[in-house]
């Protein structure tokens, strides 16, 4: 009697695990597709802003009008998406799909950063774009954790800056190399504020001053 019970229990366990696994996979796939849709929307708006910047660079009136209407909203959406994407990525099985979504997001974030720079250049736009390079592995847990916490806490009380986070020197996101080379970033835990490179944690007061808080 018992032998058949072992077999039945084993089959039932596998069956239940598979049913749950497929349900979870479907739910994760839906979530990734929602993220991808949102990334696509943000990318399109980024592209639109870039197009205005390219064609309207002489007097920049139309570009600035478009930027003033949409950039804050776009920035908030992008910021919220980033948090959700990273949180779900750490807690899902289907990490490959999430990696691809993150890749798309980072590309879109690079464009958004570029548009922030252009807006500061051509328009009356005071928000400081800040680049923060973190490590995907645990090599920068202390410094990156500290800088990340400082930026998060300042962002909650100060709207004079917008942090753009990028992984430093990571194979899956090789395109971020272009930013690292452009700004001469040599290690994770580096902040780029305007033309200033800060490669070590600084005091919160100093950071506040630099970010205009």
């Amino acid at each position, binding site marked *: 009697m018992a032998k058949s019970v072992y077999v039945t229990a084993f089959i039932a366990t596998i069956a239940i*695990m598979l049913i749950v696994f497929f349900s979870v996979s479907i739910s994760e796939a839906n979530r990734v597709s929602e993220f991808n849709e949102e990334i696509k929307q943000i990318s399109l708006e980024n592209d639109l802003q870039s197009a205005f910047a390219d064609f309207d660079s002489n007097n920049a009136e139309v570009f600035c009008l478009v930027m003033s209407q949409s950039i804050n909203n776009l920035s908030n959406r992008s910021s919220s998406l980033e948090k959700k994407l990273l*949180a779900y990525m750490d*807690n899902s099985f289907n990490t490959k799909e999430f990696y691809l979504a993150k890749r798309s997001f980072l590309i879109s974030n690079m464009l958004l950063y570029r548009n922030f720079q252009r807006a500061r250049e051509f328009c009356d736009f005071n928000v400081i774009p800040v680049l923060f390079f973190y490590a995907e592995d645990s090599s920068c847990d202390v410094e990156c954790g500290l800088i990340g*916490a400082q930026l998060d*806490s300042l962002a909650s009380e100060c709207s004079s800056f917008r942090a753009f986070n990028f992984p430093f020197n990571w194979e899956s996101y090789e395109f971020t190399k272009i930013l690292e080379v452009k700004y001469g970033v040599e290690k994770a835990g580096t902040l780029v504020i305007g033309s200033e490179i800060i490669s070590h*944690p600084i005091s919160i007061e100093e950071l506040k001053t630099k970010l205009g808080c």
Partner: protein
Amino acid sequence: MVDALILSGKEKALLFFLLALFTFLVLLASFLLSSIVLLVVFNGVFLFILLFYLLLYLNKGSHGVSNPPKSFPSVSIIIPMYNSKGTIRACVESVKRIKWLGKLEIIVVDDCSSDGSSEILKKIRGIRVITHEKNLGKAVALNNAFKRVSSKFVVCIDSDSYPERDILLKTMGYFEDKSVAAVTCLVLPDKRNSLIQKIQHIEYLAGFGLNNTLLSSISSSYVVPGPYTIIKRSVFEKVGYFQQGNLAEDMEFGLRLKKHGLKIINCFDAVVYTDIPITWSGLFRQRDRWSRGGIFNFIKYKELFFNRKNPDFGFFVMPFLFATQILTVAIIIRTLCFLLFDLFTTFKIIFEYLLLGGFFYFDFSRIVFPSSIYFFAVTYLIVLIYFALAFRLTKQKLGFRELPIFLILIFIYPYFITLIYSQGYFKEMIGVGGEWLRVST
């Protein structure tokens, strides 16, 4: 005063090797697989065990129901006692009320009590008292009585336990099967007023009620609980008596019966009530003894692992029980290692944060449900069904007021028990002796 037995050098080395091996495997898996996959695998093993028991429940038929005897042989009831002033009178009174048509004698072994319980005994009529000049422990107390009786069956009852009147009538019939060496019953807490008692009540229903019955249905019951066990006296000639100094002598004897191919039957219809720890520290001490005794006995009876004579016990019950216990301890070690590393990092961040100024900020929007939670939800649902079946089997009332206790039992209590098991492994590995004073729980 009896010192507890400790493992030999080789056995300690074996235990250390097993724990190191499991910890290494867990750490290796942690680096090779994501923590979410690891959790699902561990959950899968647990789910398999649960489903196995549920299927056994469906297949068990009438196993464990009361089994009235065809004859009424002589029975000796033995109550080992040590400092049981508060319980011994009620215990003996309840034993005297037991219904039996054959010859019934009650023997109380006073293991050198010093709290006045000996004086109480003197006032109780109709019992035989054996007095020890020195405190020798529960096993010796029982053995001394076993050697002095001539009845065909002996019943062991802890001095803080109170059997129901029909307990013998319900359990004795199982001895018609010649391979049955001992019969146990449903052990329930005498009182269930406080949270700790309510938790133990459900735990006892599931453990002594459902789990023991299912185990006995596949001839894999391996404990003869102190509150009530009836043993065929001829068994002692074959397997010997209780082992002195063993922290879980009831389990050791049960495993010895298994080694000799003898059966222990659990009758869930028969009930004995027992005093249970009423404080967390008391519960810790009791479970420390149970866990250490369990580890000690599993190592001592390692030949029962993968033993073909007891296939269900040897290939499923014992390996799974031991592996899940040792795996849990290995996971605790792994978690502590990771936690220490995280704490180190966190403290460094806090230190630098304090140095550089600022305030802490936690973004709640980053909290999401991990996908593994769905797997655990299914498993916990089956755990709830398992507990509900334990209530059903033992004919206990189940209502919504039990739900908070269930939740504590499922989500919080296991951490307490795991903590006890973990420290138990280290105590056994380094050979902390300890004393085994009390003859009751």
